[in-house]
C-alpha cells in the first residue's frame, strides 16, 4: 500500500501529512513533486494544505492548471481515492473534480482555530470507520474556506449524499449549510477544509480534548487494505 502526497511549490502541510501517515498511521507515503510524470505506483493520492503558488489570483487556481492535475483527473475517473485537504480541496474544486467554489471567509480574515464537525456520510474511503453523526474535533486554518454553491447543485449534493462533513455549533467562515467537506458523486474524491493531520496525535490536541479525526486516515488504510496487498 503506497500513498502519494502531491507537492506543489508553496504546499506547506506536505511534511505534516507525510509524518502522520508514515510515523503515526504506519502507512507508506511518499512525496510526488508536481513535475513528476508518472503517478501510477500509488494506491491513493493526498493533496495537502498550504499556499500553492502563493495563492496568487485565488487559492488553488494556478496549481489546478499544472500538468500533474491532468494525470490526477484521470486517476479520479479510474476510481482512485483522492483526498484534498484545505489548499488541496481548493485545487480539486478549481480543477473541476469537485463542484462549488471556495471563496474568502465572511469576515475576510484568516482563521485558525479548533472546532467541531459532524459526519454525514460514512460510505467513502475516508469515512468508513466513523458512525453517522459522529462528532469530530479538528482545527481549521484558512482565509478562503467559505464553500459556496448554487441551489440546484446543492440539491444534487444532498440527493447524492455528497456532503461528508458539516461544521457543528458554529459556522467559521460562512459556508453554505455549514459544509466542511464534500465528495464527488462516486465518493472516491473528497475535499476537506479542516486539517485531520493536525488532530491525529493526542499531544497536539488542546488541553483535555479528544479527537477521532485520525479516523479519516485509518478509514483510507482500511479501505485500501481490502484490495491492495502489502
Amino acid at each position, binding site marked *: 500500500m503506497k500513498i502519494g502526497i502531491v507537492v506543489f*511549490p*508553496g504546499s*506547506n*502541510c506536505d*511534511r*505534516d501529512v507525510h*509524518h*502522520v501517515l508514515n510515523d503515526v498511521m504506519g502507512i507508506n507515503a511518499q512525496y510526488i*513533486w508536481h*513535475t513528476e510524470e508518472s503517478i501510477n505506483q500509488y494506491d491513493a493520492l493526498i493533496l495537502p*494544505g*498550504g*499556499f500553492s*503558488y*502563493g*495563492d*496568487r489570483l485565488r487559492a488553488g487556481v494556478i496549481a489546478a492548471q499544472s500538468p500533474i492535475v491532468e494525470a490526477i483527473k484521470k486517476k479520479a475517473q479510474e476510481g482512485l481515492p483522492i483526498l484534498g485537504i484545505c489548499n488541496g480541496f481548493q485545487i480539486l474544486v478549481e480543477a473541476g473534480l469537485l463542484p462549488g467554489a471556495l471563496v474568502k471567509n465572511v*469576515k475576510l*480574515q*484568516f*482563521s*485558525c*482555530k479548533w472546532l467541531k464537525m459532524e459526519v454525514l456520510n460514512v460510505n467513502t474511503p475516508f469515512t468508513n470507520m466513523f458512525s453517522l453523526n459522529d462528532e469530530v474535533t479538528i*482545527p481549521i*486554518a484558512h*482565509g478562503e474556506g467559505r464553500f459556496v454553491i448554487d441551489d440546484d447543485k446543492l440539491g444534487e449534493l444532498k440527493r447524492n449524499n455528497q456532503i461528508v462533513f458539516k461544521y457543528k455549533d458554529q459556522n467559521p467562515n460562512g459556508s453554505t449549510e455549514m459544509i466542511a467537506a464534500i465528495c464527488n458523486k462516486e465518493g472516491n474524491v473528497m475535499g476537506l477544509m479542516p*486539517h485531520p*493531520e*493536525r488532530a491525529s*496525535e493526542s*499531544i*497536539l490536541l*488542546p*488541553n*483535555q480534548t479528544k479527537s477521532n479525526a485520525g479516523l479519516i486516515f485509518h478509514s483510507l488504510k482500511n479501505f485500501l487494505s481490502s484490495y491492495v496487498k502489502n
Partner: protein
Amino acid sequence: MLTKSEEIYLLRKLGRQANVLEIDMIDAEWSEHCSYKSSRKYVRSLPSRGKRVIVGPGYDAGVLDIGDDDVITVHIESHNHPSAVEPYGGAATGVGGVIRDIISMGTRPVALLDALRFSSIDKVKKTSKSKWLFRNVVRGIADYGNCIGIPTVGGDIEFDNSFKDYCLVDVAAIGLGKRSQIISNHAEDGDIIVLAGNPTGKDGIRGASFASKLLDNEEDRSAVQIPDPFLEKLLIEATIEATNRNCINATKDLGGGGLSCCLSELSHLVEKGFEIELYAVHTKMDDITPNEIMISESQERMVYVINKNKLSTFDEIFTKYGITYSIIGKVSGKDNLKILYEGKPIASLSCNLMVNAPLAKWKSKRPNYLNNLKTKIKMEMLDNYNDILLRLLANPNIGNKDWVYQQYDHEVGLRTVIKPGSNASVIRVNDNKFVSIKLDGNSKHCYLDPYQGMLGCLSESCRNVACTGAQPIGILDHLQFGSPENPHIYWTFIKSIKAIIDFCSYMKIPVVGGKVSFYNETMNSPIKPSPVIGTIGLIKDKTHITNNVPNSGNRLFILGHTREELGGSEYFELIDREKYGRVPKVNLNTDKKNRSAVLDMIEKGLIEFVHDCSKGGIGTALSELAIFGNTGINIDLKNIPNTCTRNDFLLFSETHSRYIIGTNNPDELKKFMRNRKCKFSEIGRTDSTMTLRIHESGKEVINLPLKELANRYNTMNNTMDGI
C-alpha cells in the same frame, strides 16, 4: 548620512577621498541599524557563554545545543519604522527577514513569535491610526507567516500611549537542525558568489539609514520593502536542500543595507576578499544604477558562497524551485570588497573598515522625570472591586487576544503543543523533547524604573517558561529606545543593559541573541524604554509539560510574597495614578528559588496547573484560571502572604516571582515548599459554582459569575471584530 567625525575617520583610514558609491556603502553599514555604533560597547559585555551555546550573539542567529545532535537556532529582529508608515508591508517583511537569519544557519524555521506595541485602542474610533496600525500589522504578519507555513505560536502585545502614531513590531524565530549540519561559513579563493531570489529593485532604498533616524514624515514609504512570502517559502526549501547536499560553504541573507552590508559582513565573517560584478545582478528594471543595486533592500534575497564543483547541484536545486539566481562574483584575496560594473572597478573597500564603524560616544544622564515620581500613595478607598476587576479584564493589555492569534496559523508543522495565549508556547522537537518560548516586556515599569523594569521583564519571561515545565536555557534581548543622542534616553539604555548582565550572570542563563533598536521616536515624543525579552526553555520529558488550565487539582496555592508594588501597574493606570508608587523589585535570590521550586514540583508530579502572576496581579491571574478552566474559584485573601495595606493593592499589585498553583497533593506540596524555605500558602479551591468569589475571612471582596468575567475578557476581540 555620515557625521563630520565619521567622514574624517573614513578619510584617514582610507587615505583617499571615498567616491559616491563607497560613501553610500559606508553610510548603510555605519548606520545605527547595521553597525550598533551606539550600543556595541555595552552589548559586548552581556553574558553570552554557556555549555549549550554553540554560536552566541553577533551572527545571524544564536545556536543552542539541546542534546542528541539537535540544535535550535533563535533570533529576534524588529521592523518598527517601516511598520509605522506601512504596517502591512513593514510587518510582513519583518517576518521574512528573521526567517532568513534562521535558514542562513542551515536550520529549518519551525516557529515565530511577535511582540507588538501600539498606542491605545480603547475609546478610539474604528478609523483611528492605532487601530489601523494594529489591524494591518497583524494582517501583515499573518499573511506572510501563514503562506510560508511557519506557525506563529505566540508573543506579547502591549498598548500604551507613548506609542502614539507609532508601533513596535518585533519578530522572533526558532529553527531546528542538527549540530553537524550547521553552516560553518568558510570560503576559499575561487569560490563562486551567488545572489538568489527576488530581482533587485528600487524598493527599500536606504532602509537601514531610514531606520536609524527619527520618524519625521510619512513620505518615506518608498523606504519600505515589498513582501513576497511565496518566494521566501521557495528559498527556505531550496536552501535546506542545498545545505543537506553540502552545496553551501557560507551564506547570508540580505536585510538592512542590502548587498552592501551583506557582502561586507559575509566577507568579514569568512575572512576573505570578494570581487563582485554588479552588471551580473538580476534586477527588476534596467534603469537601476549600480549605487541603487548596492543599497537596495528588495526582500527575499540570499547570497551563497559555493565551491565551483557544486554549481551544477546548486543549479539543479534552484531550478527545481524556479528561483532566479545570478553568479555575481568570486572569492579572492583578503579583506577587500571590490565592486565592478561591466568590468570596471567602481568601489574598493576594506571589509574590516566597513564592519567596524567608529563607536559613537553619547552622554548619559538620569532623566529628571524620575525625580518627580510620587512614591507615597495617597488615595481614598474604592469600594466596588467587582467593577475594577471587570475593567482590568477588559483592558487589551490583559484580556484575551484570540482576534490576533486566530489570524495566525499556529498549528502548521505539527509542533505546537501549548498554543498561543498561554503562559508560554511549547513546541515539539520530538516526542520526548520540547522547547518553550515566551516574549515579555513592560514599558510602563521600564519607564518608571529602567533597571528594575528590565529585571522584571527577565523574571516574567523566565517565570512564564518555567510554568510550562521548562528550564530556561537562553535569553533573547531586544532593546528598543528613542534617540541615543538624548542623554536621558541613553541613560535608560545603559541601566537596562546593567539589569540584563546582573540577571543573566546570577541565573547563569546566557544571552544568545538580540538586537538594539534606537531612534524609535516620532515628532510627538520618544517611546518609553521598551525592551522585549525572549526566554527559551527546554523540556526533556513529555510528562513535565504543564498548562494553566484547571481541569483537575482543586486545591489552590500561591507561591511568593505580595508587596505593595503598584508603580506602573495596570491598576494604577486604570485609576489615573500612572506616576505613583514603586515598580515591582526583583529579588534575584527569591526569583531563582521560587522558579526552581516550581520546576522541581512539576518534575515530582505535584503540580496539576500553574499560572504566572504579573499584569493585573492576583485578581487577574485568578480570573484567568477561572475562565481557562471554566470553573468556579473560591479564595480567602487573608491567607495570601503579603505586606499590603489595602485589599485592592493586594489584589492588583504586580510583584514578581509569584505563581498560583493547583494541586491534588496539598500535603506533599506544602512539605516540599517548606523544605525549600519558600513563602507560600494555601489560598482556596476550585469549585462547581461557576463564580469567582474572593473574600476576606468571609467578608465578600469580589463575587462575579464566570460568564461576566469571560465576556469582559473578550473585549478586544469583540472591538476588533466590530461587534
